[in-house]
C-alpha cells in the first residue's frame, strides 16, 4: 500500500493532508489511537515544512506513505529534499531521517524561493529515509565498487550489514527490466529485477531512446538481495552510469542500489547539502562523473 501526496506549502492544506495520512493509517490497519498518533506526526512534519522550508513563497513538496500489504504496517518514510537550500534536509534530519542517496536533476530548473538569479541547472534531491520498523541487519550482495560507501550508509541508519558471497554462475540469457518514465519531469527509472547476458544492450538501447525523447536523467535500480547485482554494476558503469546511493525498501519492500546517468553537466557548488552522509555521497558522485567525462 503506497500513497504519494504532492503538496503546496500553504497552511490551509496541512489539515486535509493530515486527515489523508490518518485515513491511510486506518486503512492500513492502525487502531484509532495509533492513527491519531500518526496524524500528529504528519501534522508536525508538514507544519515544519510549510513554515520553514518555504518561508517566503509557496513551494511544492512530496509526501510519500508506504505500508506493507501483508503486515499492514507503515514500514518507512522517505523524503526527497531539494538541494537548492538545506532547510528541507534539516527538517528531515530533525525527525531522524538519514541520507541515503543523491539524485541529480530530479526536477526541471525552476525559479527558487529566496534565490534571485537563475539557478542554472536542474534541481537535485537528497533521499532521506526513516525506517518505522527497526531493521537490525541487512544481508545483501554489495558490489565491490560500492562496498565501503554502502556499508557506511547502512551503518548510518543503525543497520548492521552482512555482505553475502556471490556464487559465480552463468547469467540467464535475458534480463528482467521494468521502465517507468516521468516525461513532465524529464526523468526515468529502470528497475533491473534480474540481470542477464543482454543487460548492457537493453539498457543502452533504452537510455539512448529516452535521452533522444526529452528525458534528462535515467536512474537504474539494482536489487541488493540478488547476487548478479555485483556484476550488473560493472555493466552499467561501462554505459556511463554513476553512483546515486541506496534506496531502501523502494520496490517490493526491498533495498536497491541506485545508479544514475545524466545528460549535461552539474555544478556541485550549487548543490547544498546538510548531512555528512549526503556530502560523502555527493563527493563520490562527483568523482565518478569526472571519471566518465575523462573516458569520453
Amino acid at each position, binding site marked *: 500500500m503506497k500513497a504519494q501526496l504532492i503538496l503546496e506549502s500553504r*497552511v*490551509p492544506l*496541512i*489539515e486535509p493532508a*493530515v486527515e489523508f495520512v490518518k485515513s491511510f493509517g486506518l486503512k492500513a490497519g492502525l487502531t484509532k489511537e495509533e492513527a*491519531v498518533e500518526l*496524524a*500528529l506526526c504528519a*501534522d*508536525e512534519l508538514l*507544519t515544519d515544512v*510549510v*513554515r520553514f522550508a518555504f518561508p517566503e513563497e509557496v513551494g511544492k513538496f512530496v509526501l510519500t506513505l508506504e505500508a506493507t500489504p501483508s503486515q499492514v504496517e507503515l514500514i518507512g518514510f522517505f523524503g526527497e529534499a531539494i538541494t537548492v537550500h538545506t532547510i528541507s534536509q534539516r527538517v528531515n534530519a530533525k525527525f531522524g531521517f538519514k541520507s541515503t542517496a543523491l539524485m541529480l536533476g530530479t526536477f526541471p530548473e525552476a525559479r527558487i524561493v529566496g534565490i534571485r538569479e537563475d539557478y542554472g541547472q536542474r534541481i537535485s534531491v537528497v533521499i532521506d529515509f526513516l525506517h518505522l520498523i527497526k531493521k537490525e541487519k541487512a544481508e545483501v550482495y554489495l558490489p565491490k565498487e560500492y562496498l565501503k560507501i554502502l556499508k557506511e550508509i547502512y551503518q548510518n541508519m543503525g543497520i548492521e550489514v552482512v555482505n553475502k558471497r556471490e556464487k559465480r554462475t552463468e547469467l540467464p540469457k535475458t534480463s528482467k527490466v521494468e521502465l517507468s518514465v516521468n516525461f513532465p519531469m524529464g526523468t526515468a527509472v529502470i528497475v533491473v529485477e534480474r540481470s542477464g547476458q543482454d543487460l548492457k544492450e537493453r539498457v543502452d538501447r533504452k537510455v539512448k531512446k529516452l535521452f533522444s525523447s526529452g528525458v534528462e536523467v535515467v536512474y537504474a535500480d539494482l536489487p541488493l538481495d540478488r547476487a548478479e547485482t555485483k556484476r550488473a554494476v560493472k555493466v552499467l558503469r561501462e554505459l556511463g552510469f554513476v553512483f546515486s546511493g541506496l534506496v531502501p525498501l523502494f520496490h517490493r519492500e526491498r533495498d536497491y542500489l541506485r545508479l544514475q546517468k545524466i545528460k549535461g553537466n552539474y555544478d556541485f557548488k550549487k548543490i547544498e547539502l546538510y548531512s555528512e552522509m549526503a556530502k560523502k555521497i555527493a563527493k563520490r558522485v562527483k568523482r565518478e562523473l569526472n571519471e566518465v567525462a575523462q573516458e569520453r
Partner: protein
Amino acid sequence: MRWHRSGRELWVELLGDFNYERVLKLREIMKENDTLILNLQNSSFVDTEAVDFLYNLKLRGREFRLLNIPDLLIKVSKFLDF
C-alpha cells in the same frame, strides 16, 4: 472555529485539531486583555505550535482556561505547569 465574547472573556470552540492554522486564527481574534476560554472537545490532538501558543500565553501572564482537554495535552500541561 466558533467564538463569542462575554465581557472580557473570549469563548472559543475549535472545530478540529488544535494546530498551526487554528493558532494563527486565535492570534488574529484575541485582544490584549481577553481571557481565553478554549473548548477542545473536537480536538483529537494538540500540536507543538498549539503548545507553544499556550505556553507563551502563560509566560506573558495572560489568563486562559481549557475545557475538554485531550489526554496528551493533560500530560504536557502538567509538565509545563499550565
